[in-house]
């Protein structure tokens, strides 16, 4: 089982390299470190960060479609509070609090009321965005110092956001693959009832995953606010599709139980290359949207085919390895 996961990630890594080199060969400017860092990586950081905890959510069999709205709402509340109170610290606290509250709200509906995550987060996508729209009356909100720092500060010529991402990425990789919490998530994704019978507090595990997603979405929202200096309630549009694309491309199954954080990270890089590559090749934005939608479909189809082939392969191995006792 383990070897298969490695093959997957190696294949993804190879895909990344191929794309990277191909685009670079077409436009040598692509390879300049300044470009790589400022265009390719910077633009993917928010999505990449959100994709990390949402991978956990998807592994448990759920999904979070409201992530873009959480990012927007938290950023907006942070900005508005700074405008009202002048306190940067309060702004940061509020941002994270809002993210936490939104994630917690999602988890309540999914775990306590057993409403399918797909419907819940689709509804909260609108609720959270709606609240953002209502409190801003459609106007823009401006960045506050902490957000600006997150969005723009650089160590040397290395943006601070990337460093944050690396730290978070390592954290989530270890969380999923080495801790017992990670094992619990896989078990819940495969068979929630049996997990409960093993003494796992499935409700708490899932709530933690959703709250982490909310928190990370808020954090990413703050970075976005800083980077773009201002934010409107529509800022989160389309984010959920992009994050889901990253997660699915990385090998995590929408049905739960299967997935890898490393896969998500490599997929993040692939999408980064794809996005910036398309920009560099001067392909219009609207085509880029189509490409994004297509990447998701293609990934889903590919993995579905692979899974079908795996199942028939497994049956063959079963009868070879074990005779009925």
């Amino acid at each position, binding site marked *: 089982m383990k070897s298969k996961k490695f093959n997957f990630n190696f294949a993804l890594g190879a895909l990344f390299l191929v794309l990277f080199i191909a685009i670079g060969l077409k436009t040598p400017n692509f390879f300049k470190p300044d470009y790589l860092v400022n265009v390719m990586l910077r633009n993917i950081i928010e999505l990449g960060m959100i994709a990390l905890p949402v991978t956990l959510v998807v592994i448990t069999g759920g*999904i979070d*479609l409201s992530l873009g709205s959480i990012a927007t709402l938290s950023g907006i509340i942070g900005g508005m509070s700074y405008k009202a109170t002048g306190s940067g610290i309060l702004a940061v606290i509020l941002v994270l609090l809002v993210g936490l509250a939104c994630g917690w709200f999602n988890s309540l*509906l999914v775990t306590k*009321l*057993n*409403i*399918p995550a*797909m*419907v*819940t987060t*689709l*509804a*909260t*996508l*609108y*609720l*959270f*965005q*709606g*609240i953002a*729209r*209502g409190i*801003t*009356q*459609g106007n823009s909100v401006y960045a506050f110092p902490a957000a600006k720092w997150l969005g723009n500060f650089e160590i040397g010529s290395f943006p601070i956001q990337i460093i944050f991402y690396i730290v978070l990425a390592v954290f989530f990789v270890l969380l999923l693959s080495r801790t017992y919490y990670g094992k619990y998530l896989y078990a819940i994704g495969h068979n929630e009832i049996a997990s409960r019978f093993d003494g796992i507090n499935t409700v708490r595990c899932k709530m933690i995953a959703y709250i982490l997603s909310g928190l990370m979405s808020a954090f990413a929202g703050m970075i976005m606010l800083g980077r773009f200096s201002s934010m409107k309630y529509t800022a989160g549009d*389309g984010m*959920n*599709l992009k994050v*889901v694309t990253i997660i*699915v491309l990385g090998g995590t199954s*929408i*049905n739960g139980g299967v997935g890898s954080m490393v896969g998500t990270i490599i997929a993040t890089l692939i999408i980064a290359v794809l996005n910036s590559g398309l920009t560099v090749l001067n392909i*219009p934005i*609207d*085509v*880029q*949207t*189509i490409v*994004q*939608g*297509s990447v*998701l*479909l293609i990934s*889903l*189809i590919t993995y*579905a085919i692979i899974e079908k082939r795996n199942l028939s392969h497994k049956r063959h191995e079963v009868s070879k390895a074990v005779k009925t006792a």
Partner: protein
Amino acid sequence: MPSEMTLGLFVVIIFALLCVVAKDFGSVNNIMSILNRFSYILIASIGMNIIMITGNIDVSFGGVISVMCILMAFIGKKGAPIYAFMPAAMLCGAILCMFNGLLITKLRIPAIVATLATTQIYAGALPLMIEGSIYDLPASFTWLAFEAKVFKFVPLSVILALILLVIALLFMKYSRFFKSLYAIGNNVKSARLAGINVDRTIIITYAIAGLILGVAATIIATAGQRVTTTMGAGMEMTFIAAVVVGGTSVTGGSGSILGTAFGSLLLSIIAPALYHLGISDSWSTAVMGAIIIIAVSVGALKGVRRKRTDRAKEA
């Protein structure tokens, strides 16, 4: 079933309350506007309902509507009448939604993700073909909204919606095909065993929904002299809300057309209600989201209560 009647009563009470509390809510102008919204919301929601009964969903309705509107404007700009561009829209809708159905059945992509992807594709493709919007549409185009009236004041669009409602009610009760939708939503495996061609049924359901959506899109497009590339953006939420409020289970297998009708009525009152209550239109999205959450939560709580009595019964 009594629960739809409860909903209907609820909507009527809300309406009456609003007439009392909000200024001009009961005015002829407002009623006309509500009826207009009601007509296209009802039609589109019927399409959404049949899809959701099978346990699926389609969040690309908004994008499809936008595509259909632009298509109709294209055809109608030269003066083509409604019976030329409406069928074109219906066909277009059927094809686009059928594509969704194919992705879901043949490629086994979960409905939410598939239609999330196609929404992007449709929404992204549109601006490539048209710059911004098509305007200066002739009177032949806006005929349905401005001139088509039955008995001199009832808009034809409302009559269309009601006719479709009656047709839908009849089909749901008496058609073997539509019965099978409930079976599929309940238990796909058993549905197959019962001889139902599940894949084909789902694809046809999406196609029918697309067809119906064409009628709704026509009502939307002909409302003014200008058609933009984002005409339908976000509308799917309204339809999903109407269906869910009407009692259709999000996991499929149950739900009625009558419930969807009452749900559509409720949803068509919201935007005018906010306006007449002096609440900024910016809050409409939040209200919509809240309504869906409340409706779904209520349905879920009922299910939780049933499960508890089930367990007691099994003893």
